[in-house]
């Protein structure tokens, strides 16, 4: 078992998310700033079940349980930095 980390990033591995750009998110670890790397765990998750909406939401991730639609590596990193900065205040 991995030690519990401060931020848990779950990447939706449902097929729609995966083909709509989710595949690239699995390389997230390479883009994390060094200061964050130890604090973040990255895992694949089964489909979040949001696929039936007509809006374009793919790919989806969850950061500590909060969903982030239309995710990109950049967006996830930004979100994590904001969370961490707020925490330091």
């Amino acid at each position, binding site marked *: 078992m991995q030690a519990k980390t401060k931020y848990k990033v779950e990447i939706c591995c449902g097929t729609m998310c*995966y083909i709509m750009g989710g595949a690239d998110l699995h390389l997230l670890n390479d883009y994390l700033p060094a200061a964050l790397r130890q604090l973040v765990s990255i895992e694949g998750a089964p489909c979040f079940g949001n696929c039936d909406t007509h809006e374009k939401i793919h790919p989806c991730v969850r950061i500590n349980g909060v969903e982030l639609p239309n995710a990109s590596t950049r967006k996830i990193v930004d979100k994590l930095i904001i969370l961490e900065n707020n925490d330091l205040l």
Partner: protein
Amino acid sequence: MTYYNNAVITKRELLVRLIKLLDEDTLFEKIDRIPLEMRPRTNSPIRCCVHKDRAVIKYKIMALLGFNIADEQDELTPLSEYAVQAIKGYEQDGNFLTVVDEACSSCVQVNYTVSNLCQGCEGRPCQVNCPKDAIMVLNGKANIDHQKCVNCGICQKACPFHAIAYLPVPCEESCPVKAIRKNANGIEEIDFEKCIHCGKCMTACPFGAISGKSQILNLYYNIKHKQEKTVAMVAPAILSQFKANSSQIINAIKEIGFDEVVEVAEGANLTTDHETQELIERLNEGASFMTTSCCPSYIEFAEKHAPELKPFISDTPSPMGYTAQLARKRFPDHKTVFIGPCLAKRKEAYKNKDVDYVVTTEELGAMFGALKIDVNIKTDSNPDTVVRPESRGYAASGGVTNAIQAILSSEQQIKTELIDGLDKKSIRLLKSLPKKNALGADFYEVMACDGGCINGPVNIAPYKMSQSKLKQAINELKTVESVQ
């Protein structure tokens, strides 16, 4: 290599929507609504206006249905009419790329442009050094005359302010054989006398203006309505494209409705055996070297650009060729469907009567998405033990060499070289080989995509992930072997 970008996502969304409609039996009624749904009035337009955006979507669909955009007779022909024809299967002409002229932004005619950094200096080295007298200074700023400029780049080098920028035309720049050029209207046009179907222009264009011609609707219609029995031939690279193990991926493919599945790696076993034998025979007969024959883009390159190389290319059929023979023998009433990461395989399949359809990784992913097939379902089935681990390795550069060396005895060892990716430099080297085998190798493995099939133009997973997933797929077989 495909970088994740919105044009790629648009293509995948279109594929998913088309397959979904076909699956719900509403393709003909709803296909003409796709451009409206994907580009609603409320969104801010990507190009000049929403109507242009919709027209782009329409023509991208037309290409995905398998039509040449240039063949359009009447601009008012609705997509539903094309869809009816696509379901029946379009008549193939041996060319599998088409330029979506509506989407082509007609990138710069001249690659050099003067930016606002221009100081209008007294020295004017750009103007003085231009061999074609193409630069004029107007209102204190240099201007390039597009009629005169020949793209030599001297002005850029001469400017001490770095005020002259180089603007590439991505498709032209990426093409290793200069097969794509502008026509009189400034729209790109592919010269099929030269094109080797490597797909580099398609992945390079940020407007998504170059599209492969897909057979997916025809195939899926036949599967869904049980018009044909089908056998899927799964290329080893496919096993590197999803976050699942190889049995899970193969099971998901069955769930689409394919009656049988064979791994192309099984055919690769035969390619390895025959190619090794052929290599030894040829070297004994005094040939200076031999190259691989499994990359269809390389074969097309040799045919169109370097006929002097042809005698040196192995005559052994590719893994797809052998697998198709096996599939025909085992399932004589089935249609054979190659599933792989390659555009050029469409060309190889076109020439090989044993292959009926070619499906790309993206199209496979779109089918999974549209039909809501989860690749990650648990399975108990074990991997096919007839497949050698080295045969799955064919999907990465160096894989063929590795497979051949694995069956050579220690006294037979040969010197090998890898041509990893067809670009201007490796093409120069390849062309020089028949005259002088400068590298002195006995065996050259040639891959048009650098990194091999796992870095193909129509893949889903990023290259780095494909590498580790392929290793995993190879190791799965190794563990099975050691258990037995």
